[in-house]
């Protein structure tokens, strides 16, 4: 168990529509490090981020962020605690009716009373960090998917949160955008010391930047360790996922009755 954790998840149980998503998950996210949560699609990785952000309630267990159990504090305290969390959503989730500049300025305007000249400087600094200062006056619809994700990243770090969560940051990106995002996540973590949680199923990209990896499958943490350890692991679960084997512990076929029986059964 790690000692200096920003996020501690203990015995987390969560079910949706009577389908169990997590059954006893324990995770520690170390301060100032990049922690990757990996696992096949549909294992509830995004749900885990929503549980950390307390957007949904667990059935059992606790999530402690910065010393606070986020599921037991009141609404006001929760909204206050969230100012210290940033989240990059899978589809960027930019506000489509306002410009790139206004999107990044949005959390600053809502949470502070800074003068306009200072807001402008802050926004331009954040946009420069993601390489999109030149696009400040464009509308989100004028940007490519990768650029939108970078603007969303600039918005997520606008208030310099202690924790930033990336939901599938590499999904559906071309190799160049992917490279840019990998570099950005690493740089932001090193330069700003932000604790980062990367949820992803892109093994090489995630393994290249993560300090510690948790592999989730069937509602549990099936493996954890440094990326190099997992890449050389002999556990069948880990091996199948890390090497992308089509069949193995996670079967290729969805559970069904016998094939021949099904074909000739009228």
């Amino acid at each position, binding site marked *: 168990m790690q000692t200096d954790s920003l996020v501690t998840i203990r015995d987390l149980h969560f079910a949706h529509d009577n389908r169990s998503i997590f059954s006893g998950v324990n995770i520690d996210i170390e301060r100032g490090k990049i922690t990757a949560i990996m696992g096949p699609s549909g294992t509830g990785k995004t749900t885990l981020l*929503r549980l950390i*952000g307390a*957007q949904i309630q667990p059935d059992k267990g606790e999530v402690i962020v910065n010393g606070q159990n986020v599921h037991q504090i009141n*609404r006001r305290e929760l*909204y*206050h*605690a*969230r*100012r210290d*969390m*940033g*989240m990059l*959503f*899978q*589809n960027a*989730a*930019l*506000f*489509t009716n306002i410009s790139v500049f206004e999107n990044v300025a*949005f*959390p600053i305007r*809502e*949470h502070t009373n800074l003068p306009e000249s200072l807001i402008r400087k802050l926004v331009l600094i954040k946009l420069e960090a993601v390489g999109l200062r030149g696009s400040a006056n464009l509308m989100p619809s004028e940007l490519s998917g990768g650029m939108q994700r970078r603007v*969303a990243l600039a*918005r997520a770090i606008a*208030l310099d949160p202690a924790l930033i969560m990336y939901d599938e940051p590499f999904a559906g990106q071309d190799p160049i955008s992917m490279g840019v995002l990998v570099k950005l996540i690493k740089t932001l973590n090193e330069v700003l010391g932000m604790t980062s949680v990367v949820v992803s199923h892109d093994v090489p990209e995630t393994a290249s930047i993560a300090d510690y990896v948790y592999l989730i499958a069937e509602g549990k943490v099936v493996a954890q360790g440094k990326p190099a350890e997992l890449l050389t692991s002999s556990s069948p679960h880990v091996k199948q996922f890390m090497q992308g084997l089509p069949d193995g512990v996670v079967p290729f076929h969805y559970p069904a009755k016998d094939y021949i029986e099904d074909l000739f059964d009228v």
Partner: protein
Amino acid sequence: MFERVRELGRSGIDVCSEMGRAGIFLIRMIFRRPRLIKVFPLVVEQLYAIGVLSLIIMVVSALFIGMVTALQGYHTLSKFGADTQLGQLVALSLTRELGPVVAGLLFAGRAGSALTAEIGLMKTTEQLSSMEMMGIDPLWRVIYPRFWAGVISLPVLSLIFTAVGIYGGYVVAVKWLGIDAGTFWSNMSASVDFHLDVLSGIIKSIVFAVVVTWIAVYEGYTTEPTAEGISLSTTRTVVYSSLAVLGLDFMLTTIMLGGW
């Protein structure tokens, strides 16, 4: 058999709990006290989107409704030689019934559906979630200004609707059917009572405004975040709002005319 009874019971409980949730939602909207300095510009922005942009459809519809009421009224009244009472007929039908009700129905179709679709799409594209994660409550930032803008807009639009409708009636009655303008206006002002007619129309439109906007924002906020979900919610907004307007109109009229 038992399964059917159980299903019936379950759907009953579902309906009750949904009503309860919607009720709590409404109470939170009404009794919330946000910082006025931040919320005022947001309400003004929504007043434009919801109120001002609905103005054209209201004015055009009101004109036609006023004109057709005058035509129909003249046709019937003239049989009894009472065509001088046309001003009274047009004004009473508009202030008491047609103004608030038709404006409410048009508002549900024009602004209510737009509200549901907009909020629903914001939810589907995770804009509301991202706001929550920024520590900004979407109920306050997105829903609250839209709710109040709707509640303020519809009564004003109803009044405009009634006024324009009466003008439409005047154009047909005086300019076309040849009724004396003095008779038209003086009969109207003699028979329309401020409390009984104008005020009751305003009260109706306030009630419709709260109900229609409440349904619209609630449906948007609780939509299933899929394309079908938005389509269903938008449809529900228009259907529920229209039925609510017509049903409540009957109840309010009964109360106002002293039937209860």
